[in-house]
């Protein structure tokens, strides 16, 4: 079994650093989602792993083999491209067969017409064709094998690209935003299929996406990348509930996490707009208090807020409000029953359990906090 190990990869375009020393490990059989906003360097990192681009510094190991100086063809990987990158002049069958044909057939054997006459070529081609059908069948492509990519829908092209990736049983899969060109319904369905393919193949997979929902639902491990750096690598649950950096907290989760300016006094007591927040910390000075929308609920004591409007989601409500002292927008996710008792414009208090509050220092890094037993949220 093989995994992917990246250590200290640096890449600059001119004077602009795109990757600032990225290290990441994908264990054998693991599905890692690399997520980040557009332009954060995630696609560049993937292309460097594939060998399509070169790193200025750093090492890449696939399985036990250092591949940093090998050509893409020698790295034993398969890649699914955002644009699918199917060969438009080849049928689905021929497209899926390319990775096998390029490796098993010699150059003369790959010649059109003549190549088929060479001894041995016929048997090799028959074996390849069998494997193509075996890769295509689980993806429902059997009926489409003799069509060209131009005659297929976006979802079907996506499947052909997946079949072309799995047919050779590579040591690792690299997927570059494979779902971003599909419509929403198809995306959810294909998400499931990619996870199934990964399970069946049991191969280390690195999946690049800017969609946090894809990252959280599909991956064993999520790596959040911003500005050419990995901010946090952890399980989806930990990334969501226990972010290590304010930027991770802000990027993951929809609606966005609420953030409030806070301060810790000399004793480590945290206040928000001068009111005690019921938290204690080792840090001092200016802080940021972050609260997930579902951590807030109307309560007798808490953050003073003025409701602005309500959004009904079916299974819940989103209460959009403003923090009374400084006008910071706040969003609370409430149960549908909470509608009664909420009046637009009528001030209320939004309380939270101290255990769900996340504190970040001035540099954006997480700081530990605990409930302040001496104080009840005012």
């Amino acid at each position, binding site marked *: 079994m093989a995994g992917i190990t990246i250590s200290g990869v640096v890449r600059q375009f001119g004077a602009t650093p795109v990757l600032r020393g990225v290290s990441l490990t994908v264990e054998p059989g693991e599905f890692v989602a690399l997520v980040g906003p557009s332009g954060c360097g995630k696609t560049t990192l993937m*292309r460097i792993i*594939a*060998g*399509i681009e070169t790193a200025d510094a750093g090492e890449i190991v696939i399985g036990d083999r250092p591949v940093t100086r090998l*050509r*893409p*063809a020698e790295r034993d*990987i*398969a*890649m699914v*491209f*955002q*644009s699918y*990158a*199917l*060969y*438009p*002049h*080849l049928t689905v069958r021929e497209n899926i067969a*390319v*990775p096998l044909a*390029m*490796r098993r057939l010699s*150059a003369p054997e*790959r010649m059109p017409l003549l190549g088929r006459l060479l001894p041995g070529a016929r048997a090799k081609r028959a074996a390849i064709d069998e494997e193509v059908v075996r890769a295509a069948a689980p993806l429902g492509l059997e009926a489409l094998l003799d069509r*060209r*990519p*131009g005659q297929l829908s976006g979802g079907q092209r996506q499947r052909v690209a997946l079949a*072309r990736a799995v047919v050779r049983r590579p040591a690792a899969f690299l997927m570059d935003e494979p779902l971003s060109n599909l419509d929403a319904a198809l995306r959810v369905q294909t998400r499931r299929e990619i996870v199934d393919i990964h399970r069946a193949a049991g191969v280390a997979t690195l999946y690049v996406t800017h969609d946090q929902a894809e990252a959280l639902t599909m991956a064993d491990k999520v790596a959040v990348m911003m500005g050419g750096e990995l901010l946090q690598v952890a399980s989806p649950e930990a990334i969501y509930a226990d972010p290590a950096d304010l930027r991770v907290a802000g990027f993951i989760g929809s609606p966005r996490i609420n953030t409030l300016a806070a301060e810790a006094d000399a004793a480590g007591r945290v206040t928000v707009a001068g009111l005690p927040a019921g938290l204690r910390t080792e840090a001092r000075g200016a802080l940021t208090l972050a609260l997930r929308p579902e951590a807030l609920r109307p309560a007798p004591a808490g953050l003073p807020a003025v409701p602005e409007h309500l959004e009904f989601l079916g299974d819940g409500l989103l209460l959009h409000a403003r923090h009374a002292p400084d006008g910071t927008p706040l969003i609370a996710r409430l149960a549908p029953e909470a509608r009664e008792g909420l009046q637009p414009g009528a001030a209320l208090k939004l309380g939270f359990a101290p255990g769900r509050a996340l504190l970040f220092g001035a540099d954006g890094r997480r700081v530990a906090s605990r409930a302040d037993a001496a104080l009840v949220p005012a």
Partner: protein
Amino acid sequence: MRRLAGEAVAGALMTLPAGIAYLLLLLLPTLATVLLAFTDYELGATALGWIGLDNFREMLADRGFGVSVRNTLVYVGLVTPISILGGLGLALLVEAGAKGRAFFRAVFFLPVVSLTVAMAAAWQYLLHPTIGPVNAALRAMGLGTPFWLSSSDTVLLSLAAIGVWESIGFNMVLFMAGLTAIPRELYAAAEVDGARGGFDRFRLVTWPLLGPTTLFVLTISMIRSLRVFDTVAVLTQGGPNKASEVLLFTMYQQGFTYLRLGYSAAITLVFLAVVLALMWVQTQVLDKRVHYA
């Protein structure tokens, strides 16, 4: 209903200027040529007689015309493949180079924008048997010095070389446009799929995706080389001994030197038929193989 009719009238009125131009400049002259081809009209004559297929019969019997057709085919057979393969090769080389893309494009495109008649004079000097630099170079290397444009063995080859020089840059620019239209991702996919060298990449991606461009270049090159006239008229006048006589030069000579417009029109019809037949074959046979969508 009335509004629709009004729109139709307005539409017809608006297309009228273009329609008149088309009629006067294209349709009527073509029709006149077709009709003249069946007459014995001579330029300046006051009368003409309908002679049916006599002009075409004369063509078949005329040895000179046969030579002219053969020469034209040899010229096309030399210039078209060499200028296409050469243009493709140059385009690949220039695209692969990191620097000087604009410079090389300009250098190779220069013959296309220069006036052939003026350039022909330069070629006449270059290929001059005694004072020309080409033969001077050959002499220096101790090789033979052919009479390029004045020997019936080499005249067609020399003209074809000039023809290649004329159109290779044009084909290169067309191929370069075709190359930039190939998605980069396909090359990346080919690398990941196991393409190891430039030839693998060319076979798997470049050549198939250049299909539509190649078809267009083939069509344009064939028409351009079928139409060879200026170099022949300036450099050889079809000589020596009809060795460089080509279809359009024969037509020109019959029509404007011997003033036999009827016969000249018949040659024009044959020329048109050849061009149309080639176009038809290309669109019917090749078009289906190069457009994939």
